[in-house]
């Protein structure tokens, strides 16, 4: 197990360096000059442009800039935003809990609904039930998130007025963040109604963000189940006279879960990508929106620092999934 763990960790290092190079260079490939953008539509004189570029260190050779950035990251300094002038790590820790809260709720919803839907579709293979579930999953998978989010807002917030339109909590509640997780902070605040308000604000974004992972998990569970249900040991279990619940719930499901767990792990990346759009629609102050704004402002330090932090988290989650995978399926460890 230790060897397996060390092996996985060894792979992380080149991946991390690769991501840092991509984060650093891709943003510089985009047309648009961060220094010129600072002056908006006003034309900046070439002398001032040169002076500010120098102050921000953009006039140094690329390789020096990159090594500086890498050196900073290794010593825990992710730099300072050239727009807001505040520390990138500080901003990240303010915004990240919002994204985590939303993503965790979304993935829980996706698992809770997706796995049973997949199992039943597999058991009832070929029936109307199966076709309905798989058809819905396909629609969910192909849904443009932006459109879907807006549609839900117009229906539930606009017409039915069941849920608030956007934000994390009603503006009448105001308390300093403790953990950054609104569900927890609203309980800690002791203000009555705050928790309910936080939950009601979470509903629509959670549904929107979970749509794609839900569809993927349902489809993956169904196909894994179908494969496993045809295996010899399932037939044996049935022949032994075990109850259908035991056959499916214990013998089949445990084996079918292996690819599903991998899929769920991979959804973390999908969630973060989906969060960019979901957060924008629902004015959810998370890292997705932060990244998009920074790209528009060509805020190089934020983009390269933020991307690295996000990639680091995805890598860690995938590592954990790999380890879990190893626990479920001992063969992998060899």
């Amino acid at each position, binding site marked *: 197990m230790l060897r397996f763990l060390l092996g996985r960790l060894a792979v992380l290092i080149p991946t991390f360096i690769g991501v840092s190079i991509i984060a650093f260079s891709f943003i510089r490939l985009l047309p648009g000059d961060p220094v010129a953008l600072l002056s908006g539509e006003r034309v900046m004189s070439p002398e001032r442009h040169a002076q500010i570029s120098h102050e921000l260190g953009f006039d140094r050779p690329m390789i020096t800039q990159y090594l500086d950035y890498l050196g900073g990251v290794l010593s825990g300094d992710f730099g300072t935003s050239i727009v807001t002038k505040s520390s990138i790590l500080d901003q990240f820790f303010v915004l990240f809990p919002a994204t985590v809260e939303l993503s965790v709720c979304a993935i829980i919803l996706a698992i809770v609904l997706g796995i049973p839907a997949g199992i039943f579709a597999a058991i009832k293979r070929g029936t109307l039930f199966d076709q309905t579930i798989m058809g819905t999953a396909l629609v969910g998978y192909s849904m443009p998130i932006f459109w879907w989010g*807006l549609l839900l807002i117009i229906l539930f917030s606009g017409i039915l007025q069941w849920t608030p339109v956007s934000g994390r909590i009603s503006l009448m509640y105001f308390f300093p963040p403790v953990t950054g997780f609104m569900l927890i902070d609203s309980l800690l605040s002791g203000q009555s109604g705050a928790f309910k308000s936080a939950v009601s604000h979470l509903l629509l974004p959670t549904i929107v963000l979970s749509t794609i992972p839900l569809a993927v998990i349902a489809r993956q569970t169904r196909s894994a189940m179908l494969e496993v249900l045809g295996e010899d040991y399932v037939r044996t279990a049935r022949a032994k006279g075990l109850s259908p619940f035991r056959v499916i719930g214990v013998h089949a499901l445990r084996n079918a879960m292996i690819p599903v767990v991998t899929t769920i792990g991979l959804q973390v990346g999908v969630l973060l990508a989906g969060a960019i759009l979901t957060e924008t629609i629902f004015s959810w102050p998370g890292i997705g929106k932060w990244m998009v704004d920074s790209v528009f402002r060509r805020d190089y330090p934020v983009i390269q620092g933020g991307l690295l932090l996000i990639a680091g988290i995805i890598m860690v989650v995938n590592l954990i999934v790999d380890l879990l995978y190893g626990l479920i399926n001992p063969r992998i460890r060899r």
Partner: protein
Amino acid sequence: MIRKLTFAAALMAATVLSSAASAKTFVYCSEGSPEGFDPGLYTSGTTFDAAAHTVYNRLLEFKPGTTETEPGLAESWEISDDGLQYTFKLRPGVKFQTTEFFTPTRDLNADDVIFSFERQFKADNPWHQYVAGAAWEYFNGMGFPDLISSIEKVDDMTVKFTLKEKEAPFLANVAMPFASIMSKEYADKLAADGKMNQLNQMPLGTGPFAFVAYQQDAVIRYKANPDYWNGKQKIDDLVFAITTDAAVRYQKLKAGECHLMPFPNAADVEAMKADPNLKVVEQEGLNIAYLAYNTTQAPFDKVEVRKALNMAINKQAIVDAVFQGAATPAKNPIPPTMWSYNDAIQDDKYDPEASKKMLEEAGVKDLSMKVWAMPVARPYMLNARRAAELIQSDFEKVGVKVEVVSYEWAEYLERSKAKDRDGAVILGWTGDNGDPDNFLHTLLGCDAVGGNNRAQWCNEEFNKLVVQAKTTSDQAERAKLYEQAQEVFKREAPWATLDHSLSVVPMRKEVEGFHQSPLGDFAFEGVDLAE
């Protein structure tokens, strides 16, 4: 369970506004996060709305809803006979805000004014580089480093600015957000505590609203400043609910989650006007879109040719196609909301037949030309490509062949400046300080040829008028000069003036006392909510 919760949420959402109204909380669905809270560091309107118009004041202020200035923190001022010295007498008894993070011990005085300006231009001022790469872009963009010779404290309540040359727009410039007056006492405290960065995060000024808290990308909270020199506000709390998507802002406005929103989608405006809970105000923005001929190149060096082409353009069609009506055709190079706008001027009539005849008379035959279309959408021109195509078909009707060209934005700005440029350029301008000089001299003066003057047009008569106006202190006199300058402009036609886009502001019916600013600001001093 979920159903129960959503009903609870519905109930709550419905009560938000009513409870907000009893506490008099005004919620503004702002379009984005401020970059920071030091208005000197930034150039975007979003940042100015969040910092400059709430927390701070300036020596002079723009009269709500106009581009004219009025006394602000300066109660009065004197201009020396040579026009080089401006002496501002400060308003006595102006208190800085008392907040949870700072309690001031003294009132506003000359030190605060000097600090607010010196940090922007004296490289040896400890605050000049208090954040990395502080560009002080507006201070530099308005030419202050070359304009200001010195700022002196005459006494505790008097400050004297000495300029290197005459500059009548100076008074309008010191009313701009970058010239906001900060507390030196607060800054000194931050410096002593080693927390200079906080000046850009937790602002403290003399303005109508005191800063309470900012949750990044989510909410900014202010409370009314009880010591405000211009009277306490009628609302108790001001909240900016940051909502980047225009369609979502509209839903929030409809649901009563906010009282006022900026920048609606053009497609939603009709429905907003029809909604009995909402009202919509609109006016021309402080902008102009134009087609600039190169007046140094034949045949565009002839006035008759330029006039004839102007008469061939169907501006209304451009406004309809590009803005769906959210703009007005322009006849002058400055917008109608600006003082000195000459409304007596008659626009060149859209008349393709007359245009064709005039071209023939000018001896122009088989003319083919380029029309440059900007690659980006700007407030004054949402789709330059579409506008260029309409102009192309208009010109074809009078026998002029047009090739539409475009370049990457930075390249476009650079290449279009060239004196030997080939073709007419679509471009525009959004004003900074509401002063006509900022349009007429900046865009059409002889100094700007090879730069902002894309028509490469140096007309002696026009230039004399705008230079004289720039160095005249009396506003009525200046207005006359600018009115004459607009006549010369119309007669000489260096541009085809295309449009002024409208700024549309939807709000809840109960909002009172909001003045739509021609400068594009969203300022909430004096707003109220009807019971």
